[in-house]
């Protein structure tokens, strides 16, 4: 081995890399951004879950304590704890609040709640969980159990046979006990995979189109920018839809994913997402001189989008400024929409907001892409 040649080679590699200043900067700064963002998200305390309270408890006289309304004691214990925020609701509004996502569950105290405790020393609670997110559902259930037990602790000393004085009957608005974390994660994964591949395909394909001179050549024909961008969208849409359908079919049949929605509705959302991804890809390809620089968009653009999209951390639990930011990003809306369709079995009409948000983002990206189609690499 010739030492001089090896050292010269190493020197050339270093010089070459340093000359690509953007790579150096991204190499140093990219990981910092990702680590900070992840740390911030992981360390941010989960917010207390809003829990609807339908309090019909008429109270009862309990030995040694006189007239009490047990339900009030439990609700007060919730207010003191930091896991739940009690939201008093009239019985006829409870379901609407649950559907609208204002509360994550509704607990109902029947009129004889205190009375049955006074008599049997044990009570049953009715809990209806929203159920889309199994993690949140479990958290609400266990927080309710803990709070209830704490509130009853002083009163239940005489309970019979060591049996727990509190039991909860759980029903689910959506999903159910058979829905697991995978069912919850599958919709955003479908979103992410389609978005990521379409984005990468477009960026690299368009980069090649620029570097091999065919964009220049295309612009010397009567074809318009809008035609080019639309053609790209249609072309990649075919791949994206095939990919989404294959993935969904596989997860439902082989992996046993629970799926409540309509395939067509799902593909509509995926199509809108493709529109965003293709145009974002064309736009960003303006800023990449080579395939290597395309890879740099992953930590810089894609990963923050994914972290904020609600894939792992529910958007409503994000700290402060990150919530509005998350709602500016297309992945968030697409994940929301697909969860609504796949877990809650809702239709397109019910995800109108998300559709409008995706369309709007798509339009902005399309305009940016059309403007930069011809741009020489900066």
């Amino acid at each position, binding site marked *: 081995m010739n030492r001089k040649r090896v050292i010269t080679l190493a020197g050339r590699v270093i010089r070459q890399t340093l000359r690509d200043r953007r790579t150096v900067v991204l190499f140093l700064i990219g990981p910092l951004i990702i680590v900070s963002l992840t740390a911030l998200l992981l360390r941010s305390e989960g917010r207390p879950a809003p829990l609807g309270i339908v309090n019909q408890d008429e109270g009862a006289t309990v030995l040694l304590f006189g007239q009490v309304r047990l339900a009030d004691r439990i609700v007060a214990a919730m207010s003191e704890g930091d896991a739940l925020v009690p939201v008093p609701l009239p019985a006829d509004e409870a379901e609407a609040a649950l559907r609208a996502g204002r509360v994550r569950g509704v607990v109902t105290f029947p009129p004889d709640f205190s009375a049955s405790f006074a008599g049997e020393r044990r009570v049953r609670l009715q809990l209806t969980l929203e159920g889309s997110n199994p993690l949140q559902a479990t958290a609400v259930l266990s927080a309710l159990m803990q709070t209830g037990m704490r509130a009853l602790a002083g009163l239940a000393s005489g309970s019979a046979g060591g049996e727990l004085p509190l039991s909860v009957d759980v029903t689910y608005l959506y999903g159910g006990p058979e829905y697991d974390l995978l069912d919850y994660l599958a919709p955003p994964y479908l979103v992410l995979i389609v978005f990521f591949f379409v984005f990468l395909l477009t960026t690299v394909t368009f980069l090649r189109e620029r570097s091999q001179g*065919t964009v*220049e*050549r295309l612009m*010397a024909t009567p074809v318009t920018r809008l035609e080019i961008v639309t053609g790209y969208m249609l072309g990649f849409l075919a791949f994206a839809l095939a990919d989404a359908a294959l993935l969904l079919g596989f997860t439902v049949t082989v992996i046993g994913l629970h799926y409540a929605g309509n395939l067509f509705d799902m593909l509509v959302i995926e199509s809108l997402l493709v529109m965003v991804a293709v145009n974002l890809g064309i736009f960003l390809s303006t800023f990449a001189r080579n395939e290597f620089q395309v890879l740099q968009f992953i930590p810089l653009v894609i990963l923050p989008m994914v972290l904020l999209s609600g894939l792992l951390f529910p958007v409503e639990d994000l700290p402060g400024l990150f919530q509005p930011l998350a709602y500016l990003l297309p992945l968030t809306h697409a994940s929301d929409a697909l969860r609504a369709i796949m877990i809650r079995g809702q239709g397109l009409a019910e995800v109108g907001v998300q559709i409008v948000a995706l369309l709007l983002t798509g339009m902005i990206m399309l305009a940016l892409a059309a403007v930069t189609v011809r741009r020489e690499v900066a």
Partner: protein
Amino acid sequence: MADAVTLDSVCKSFGALQAVQNFSLRIPTGITYGLLGPNGAGKTTLIRLIVGLLRADSGRVSVMGRPMPDKDMLAHIGYMTQTPAIYSDLTVRENVAFFGTMAGGVSPARVNEVIALVGLSDRADSLGRTLSGGMRQRTSLACALVHQPRLLLLDEPTVGVDPQLRVQFWDYFRQLNAQGVTIIVSSHVMDEAERCDRLGFIRQGQLIAEGTGADLLAQAGARTLEEAFLTFAGATQERPLQEKMPA
């Protein structure tokens, strides 16, 4: 007949670089015009201005009487870039058909015809990336010709084309001229120049001499076009040098 191309006091700069300076030229319809000059003289910029890929900073560019850039005119213009611009994952036939459709639509028979013309019939179904440099160049030429343009701009078209095929190309260009097609060829090789009806010598973004080959030889008192070019180039170069002298 109207001129195929008119350039009227055209200027184009890229930052500090003045690529084309106060350039005026008229190219009559139905001839082959040669733009000659060394690398970096501004030939490609000039061609891109004529196609309308660039907009002049000042001055006017028109093609067949229509000011450029004009998307509609592009259906009548064929442009062959200096480095072959073809899709490496498409076959020769697919490339030619693609650009034919982009230019407004052509028949499969026409696609085969131009592929035969550039001598690639036996490679028509080969992928772009498997072709040699010269074959890519010829595919690129086929893409520029397929929609039967009225104006054909060829940026260094015969680089990498073997002499035998080059003769065929020039024969075909002559046929096109006879059909009223105007051809503009850029080159830095002077022996190409002899085949052109008229020539423009370009240096540092300026037109330093213009006319038929015989005119230029006579004006410069030179025996070859190369000599003539150097004479004209020397004439333009002398002035700035003389200006510096008194200081």
